[in-house]
């Protein structure tokens, strides 16, 4: 292992990443990271706050904490991500279609090979917050995020409007949205 790789691994192992929100809220960096995530979710109109309809059941959510490192192993930033517990969703109630294609590694290899042999450039892009572009038709309610319950009234939950990462239908919703755009450009 190279020195750089060793330094990177060591710093990964040395950092104390909280597992639960209770631990995280003791540290300023994590509280700030959670605030930033909440602001981003609100800015993107990910959900609408509403009182839970009587016959509906909300899905849970939890926080995940990660430390982003620069290539040399030093800390770039603290990141908190709110994820709905997609595994508690029920088929036919809060989701239906979930199919979404993923590129096979062999396919990627073939593309690389063609591009290299023909001297074509390989250029890469990233779609930011990709799932926020996906709309879906099911009604999904999510519990108020822990640590922010003071911003919610009793019985108030989040009615999800955007397919955030962690929902069963999110990859499918994005793929549908992307397909519509590509077809409009004339691709088949």
């Amino acid at each position: 292992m190279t020195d750089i790789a060793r330094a990177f691994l060591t710093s990964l192992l040395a950092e104390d990443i909280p597992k639960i929100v209770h631990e995280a809220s003791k540290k300023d960096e994590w509280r700030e990271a959670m605030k930033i995530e909440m602001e981003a979710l609100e800015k993107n109109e990910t959900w609408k706050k509403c009182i839970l309809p009587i016959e509906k059941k909300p899905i849970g959510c939890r926080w995940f904490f990660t430390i982003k490192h620069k290539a040399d192993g030093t800390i770039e930033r603290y990141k908190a991500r709110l994820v709905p517990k997609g595994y508690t969703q029920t088929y036919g109630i809060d989701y239906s279609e979930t199919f979404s294609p993923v590129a096979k590694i062999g396919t990627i290899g073939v593309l690389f090979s063609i591009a290299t042999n023909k001297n074509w450039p390989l250029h890469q892009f990233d779609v930011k917050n990709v799932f926020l572009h996906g709309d879906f038709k099911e009604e999904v309610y999510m519990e108020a995020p822990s640590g922010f319950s003071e911003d919610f009234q009793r019985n108030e939950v989040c009615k999800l409007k955007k397919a955030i990462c962690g929902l069963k239908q999110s990859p499918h919703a994005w793929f549908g949205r992307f397909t519509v755009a590509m077809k409009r450009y004339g691709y088949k």
Partner: protein
Amino acid sequence: MIIIGSDIEEITQLKNNLFREFEMKDLGGLKYLLGIEVLHSKKGIFISQRKYIIDLLAEA
């Protein structure tokens, strides 16, 4: 997302379309995709999964 093709004009047009429609980031020449590192040289490209393995070890 990677775009590959021989027609630079068409690539540019597709890129512009996508940038107008979605919030996108141009990551430049291909360096890392789905666990595959790509190094470029005059003779061609070299691909490895070094970083993927290191990340995997850190998780284990």
